[in-house]
């Protein structure tokens, strides 16, 4: 029966075209219009504002006047889209659960101390009390990120690895790179200057530079957990990697691998574990965890599917080895991994 009906439908469509009910060329215009918007989307050109069609080909007799109801529906759709992603983010956060509980407590403690410092600004006594209760490892970490250990050959090595981060999503678009625990954001600026779309995250208001607009207040694990999978083309991890509890180190490697887009690069910079303990055993004892050996980081990153592992260890015997106590590890997410989407794409 349906084959007969289809034949009738085809005949009716031919008649409609012949009778002029369908404006001549409408179907071609619709196709051309889609090609225009497709090109605009692929090139990342700006979205036309409400009521204008931008540079796309207008289709005769199709666009109607904007109504209040139309605007309301548009707003509703927008809100639904925004809320949808928030709910998904919430779901991801809860999924992480206990793995990052320790880190959250640590972060909250320091954020609270920051707030108390602001509230009691001018009080010498309060300042002394707060300084006394602030854990030692935070001070060490602040020093490391405001006066980064990223110098000399190590800095060159890290920049080279991150500079190749390219957007796999939209060809030609700058790679999206985040520096987690970015301190005052100077490295974010460096990456920006190299043509990357750089962002930063840091839990401590005391070190963030106000007004950059590209740095958010968040601990590293918290930030990566709240990030949608396959978001970043490059991730730089500093600071927090020196003081993670063992369980949290595994979670960090997993979250970084998850947040990387295929082809993306993660670089982490850490103090050498033996040097830290030798130089400041008190601070090391107070820290929630110890820095890990580069081999351990390589193992963790490989375990979560990253490859092309490289380790940079400045040679202490050379005169330009400004930071012999620090090493860096880089790894790439293989382009052949496409998590979460099956090929039939139903």
């Amino acid at each position, binding site marked *: 029966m349906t084959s007969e009906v289809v034949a009738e439908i085809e005949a009716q469509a031919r008649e409609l075209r012949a009778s002029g009910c369908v404006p001549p060329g409408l179907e071609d215009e619709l196709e051309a219009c*889609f090609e225009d918007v497709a090109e605009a989307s*692929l090139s990342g050109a700006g979205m*036309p504002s409400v009521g204008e069609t931008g540079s796309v080909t207008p289709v005769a007799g199709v666009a109607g006047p904007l109504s209040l109801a139309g605007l309301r529906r548009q707003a509703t759709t927008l809100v639904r889209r925004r809320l949808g992603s928030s709910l998904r983010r919430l779901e991801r956060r809860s999924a992480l659960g206990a793995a990052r509980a320790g880190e959250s407590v640590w972060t909250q403690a320091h954020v609270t101390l920051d707030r108390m410092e602001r509230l009691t600004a001018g009080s010498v006594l309060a300042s002394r009390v707060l300084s006394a209760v602030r854990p030692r490892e935070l001070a060490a970490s602040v020093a490391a990120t405001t006066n980064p250990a990223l110098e000399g050959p190590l800095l060159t090595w890290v920049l080279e690895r991150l500079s190749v981060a390219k957007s796999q999503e939209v060809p030609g678009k700058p790679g999206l790179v985040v520096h987690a625990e970015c301190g005052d954001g100077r490295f974010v600026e460096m990456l920006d200057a190299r043509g990357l779309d750089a962002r930063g995250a840091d839990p401590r208001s005391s070190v963030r530079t106000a007004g950059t607009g590209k740095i958010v207040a968040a601990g590293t694990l918290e930030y990566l957990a709240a990030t949608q999978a396959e978001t970043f083309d490059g991730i730089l991890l500093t600071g927090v990697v020196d003081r993670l509890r063992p369980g949290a180190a595994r979670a960090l490697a997993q979250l970084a691998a998850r947040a990387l887009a295929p082809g993306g690069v993660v670089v982490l910079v850490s103090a050498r574990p033996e040097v830290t303990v030798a130089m400041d055993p008190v601070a090391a004892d107070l820290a929630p965890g110890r820095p890990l050996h580069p081999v351990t980081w390589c193992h963790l990153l490989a375990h979560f599917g990253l490859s092309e592992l490289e380790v940079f260890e400045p040679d202490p015997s050379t005169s330009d080895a400004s930071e012999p106590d620090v090493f860096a590890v880089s790894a790439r997410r293989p382009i*052949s991994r496409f998590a979460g989407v*099956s090929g039939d794409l139903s």
Partner: protein
Amino acid sequence: MRARPIRIDQIIPSIVERDAVSHHALEAQKVLHSMGFVSEIYARNMGPGLHGRVHLLEDLPRERPERQWVCYQASIGSPAADVFASHPGLKLLDYHNISPAELVERWLPHLGEEIRLGRKQLAELAPIVEIGFADSEFNRLELDEAGYRDTTVAPLMVDTTNFSCPPDQRVVDRLAAARARGGHDWLFVGQMLPHKAHQDVIKALVCARRMFDPEARLHLIGRESCPAYADALHRYVSALGLTGAVEFAGSVSSGELSAYYASSEVFVCCSDHEGFCAPLLEAMHHRLPVVAYGVTAVPETVLDAGIVLASKSPVLVATAVQRVLTDAPLREALVRAGLERARAFSAESARRGFARAIEQVLQAT
């Protein structure tokens, strides 16, 4: 007859909630358990909520071939295929199709590479796989072409959660209020990916609004899996002045999806490639007549329970939709045939089909 193994484990590149292939693997595990096998799923990538139910691929045991078989869920290129290939156990492959790279690589270059790898791996695995299962005849023929010596159709175990979930009343009320102002409701369900060709449904809507139904609306359900493509669709709708007529609902809950099925009047599919297309069956189950472009596995999934067109020119699709909406006897016949077709893919029937396919391997000499 072959020696019965103790365990049949599954290997899958990625497993996530609310994904057709992932759901199939989880259902297949239940069938294998019911047949008395030890059976676990090993994935290279795992979505939230599956830890504990699924293991990491690195933990896949390697027992003797007479004790352990492995079944690979093939739908994309992945290093998981190499793990499967190097495993000593007897090998089964369950094929869900791999969309052609040329349909997606303009929008997702890395997915294009992944797909090419998948096709290459599919051919490379042919000589070492004992039997290839396919969830449609269309997919089975692709396995034959790839050189698989023994192939059979084992139906996709469709997620029937959406079949029985009560509709979300808020969505029902909202759509009813819109319909009270006139116009019919069209529906398409599928991830927002380029080969689903959402733009072709939108083009047909434009023609229908000009020729027959100026207030017609389209609801597009499915997560925006390709940002550039989703952006283009939003721009397209805006450029065509259809902002109030096309709803991008995104990923919705089962109750909301059920409400869209219950409240819409026609399901329109213009996909360029489908290995099976479960939403067609969901639509049929919800008494929604189907108008679809007849490519790849779509004609086989729909059979005579929908209007399957040889072309998707916007005028033709619009004319077909109008016919379905206005020809009451035709509509009733399509709804009846659709319900019958959906029953053929019931969960129980699909489980029996998969169990039969496994028995077939055991019986082989």
